[in-house]
């Protein structure tokens, strides 16, 4: 952090009048990743305060849900919440609804859901790191990553016909089984993708300028991260060894062998921007491990057997949460004796993670603020819902 310089004095000892400058970063600004608006108070290049203003992309998700005629109808809306990680959103909703309705699905459904969620995590992390690179002025890694994200989207397209908003996981099952050539194509993708991961490591993550820009910037200490309920790479980057997939297992994650990646402060302090970025980078390797295992042991079964014809739950509530690419994605469903959900609240990880920005960007420089924002990895669709 850079200390504010002392105000200049005239020869008679009077201080010169200097003013803080207030600038609006957003809603139309290249590095707010959408339509976030930050009211930034600047002392020269140094940020003295940040006031986030949200809601420019508020699409009344929760209100819409209360007007559906079926629980299944919510799924397309959930897709649109975090539009770069739709599969995970569906998973969160489906996990919560199945918990509420006490539906058991067969192992094949669990396995396919895990494969999809992990592919989606990779796709989302690719965007996160790529756009983070753009924020740092490195445009090229972004396109390298998009080339591989494209392959994941092709896999999704092959499976359910859509590239971005899938409506694939349904309560009690899946809309389709995976196509016959899916396993083969996924294996091909994994082989090719491992090369890209290494390539971008060389190009971006261990680039000297990149390290200079990100190490020791935007440090988020452990206790602050927990107090702000940060989750996902944000929390793990701060050195907290916590991952919902391991610590509160849902579907069948406990069947697989993989490691939780934790920030170690390799280039600076634990919890800095570099750590958060690196956690994402390394998590992709772990996701690949999970996918490889899941594909190798994919069980047989009917994926749409458990889909209920009509959903009318007993009154009650359930909170289901999954580890999305951005962190704990929770869906809280309250049901009454009706086919319409009474209340659905989405606990969006990006929304919660973003709330810490004021705390960690005070005293940083304007360019650091951009780095911090990129490392939080917000998707405005999810922040505003």
């Amino acid at each position: 952090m850079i200390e504010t310089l002392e105000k200049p004095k005239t020869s008679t000892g009077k201080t010169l009048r200097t003013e803080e400058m207030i600038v609006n970063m957003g809603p139309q600004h290249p590095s707010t990743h959408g339509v976030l608006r930050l009211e930034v108070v600047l002392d020269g290049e140094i940020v003295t305060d940040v006031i986030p203003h949200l809601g420019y992309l508020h699409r009344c998700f929760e209100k819409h849900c209360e007007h559906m005629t079926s629980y299944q109808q919510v799924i397309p809306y959930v897709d649109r919440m975090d539009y770069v990680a739709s599969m995970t959103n569906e998973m969160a909703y489906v996990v919560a609804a199945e918990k509420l309705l006490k539906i058991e699905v067969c192992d094949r459904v669990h396995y396919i859901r895990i494969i999809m969620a992990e592919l989606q995590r990779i796709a989302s992390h690719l965007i996160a790191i790529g756009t983070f690179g753009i924020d740092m002025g490195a445009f090229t890694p972004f396109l390298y990553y998009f080339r591989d994200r494209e392959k994941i989207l092709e896999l999704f397209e092959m499976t359910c016909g859509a590239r971005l908003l899938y409506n694939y996981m349904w309560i009690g099952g899946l809309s389709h089984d995976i196509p016959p050539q899916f396993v083969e194509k996924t294996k091909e993708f994994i082989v090719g993708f491992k090369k890209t991961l290494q390539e971008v490591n060389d190009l971006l993550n261990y680039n000297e300028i990149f390290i200079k820009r990100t190490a020791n910037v935007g440090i988020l200490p452990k206790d602050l991260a927990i107090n702000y309920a940060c989750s996902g790479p944000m929390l793990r980057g701060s050195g907290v060894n916590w991952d919902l997939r391991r610590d509160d297992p849902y579907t069948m994650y406990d069947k697989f062998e993989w490691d939780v990646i934790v920030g170690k402060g390799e280039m600076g302090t634990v919890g800095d921007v570099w750590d958060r970025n690196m956690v994402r980078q390394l998590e992709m390797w772990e996701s690949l491990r999970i996918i490889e295992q899941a594909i190798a042991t994919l069980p047989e079964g009917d994926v749409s057997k458990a889909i209920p014809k009509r959903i009318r739950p007993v009154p009650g509530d359930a909170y289901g949460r999954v580890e999305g690419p951005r962190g704990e994605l929770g869906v809280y469903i309250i049901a009454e004796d009706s086919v319409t959900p009474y209340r659905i609240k989405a606990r969006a990880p990006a929304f919660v993670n973003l709330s810490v920005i004021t705390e960690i960007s005070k005293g940083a420089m304007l360019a650091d603020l951009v780095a911090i924002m990129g490392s939080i990895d917000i998707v405005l669709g999810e922040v505003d819902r």
Partner: protein
Amino acid sequence: MTAQEIYDILKAQFGEAVLEAKLENVADPFIKIAAGAIKEVSVFAKNDERFQFDYLSCLSGVDFKGKLGVTYHLYSMTLRHKIVLKVEVPTDAPNVPSVESIWKTANWHEREAFDLLGINFLEHPDQRRILLPDDWEGHPLRKDYQTPEFYNGMKVPY
């Protein structure tokens, strides 16, 4: 720690303020707390050695037609257990003490609940609308909410 044990400790500590609990045959066991006592209960839940609920997973507001509810999903990073706390207040006096001073994350969640449901969080440092425009009227997630015809001269229903 099981939900039953958590309930017993809370009951012993707060007595009257712990209203009821449903611990069996539900998706998530929950404990209902009197609205006025939620802050004290939260402080206890966070600081007590046996609980250490340091992570407020989610805070949601609900409209129960005549009553407004707030649900707190608590989790402990160190002890890896969880519990759900619920409070209810009448719609005409929707005052709930803020837990912002205990879990900073509650700040935005409470602003959201205030914005969409009109729950008034006492002692909240910065209670403004968060998702809707500052000059929006009404709280849309209330069950009796009527969509306004116009907002700043723009037609709302389409």
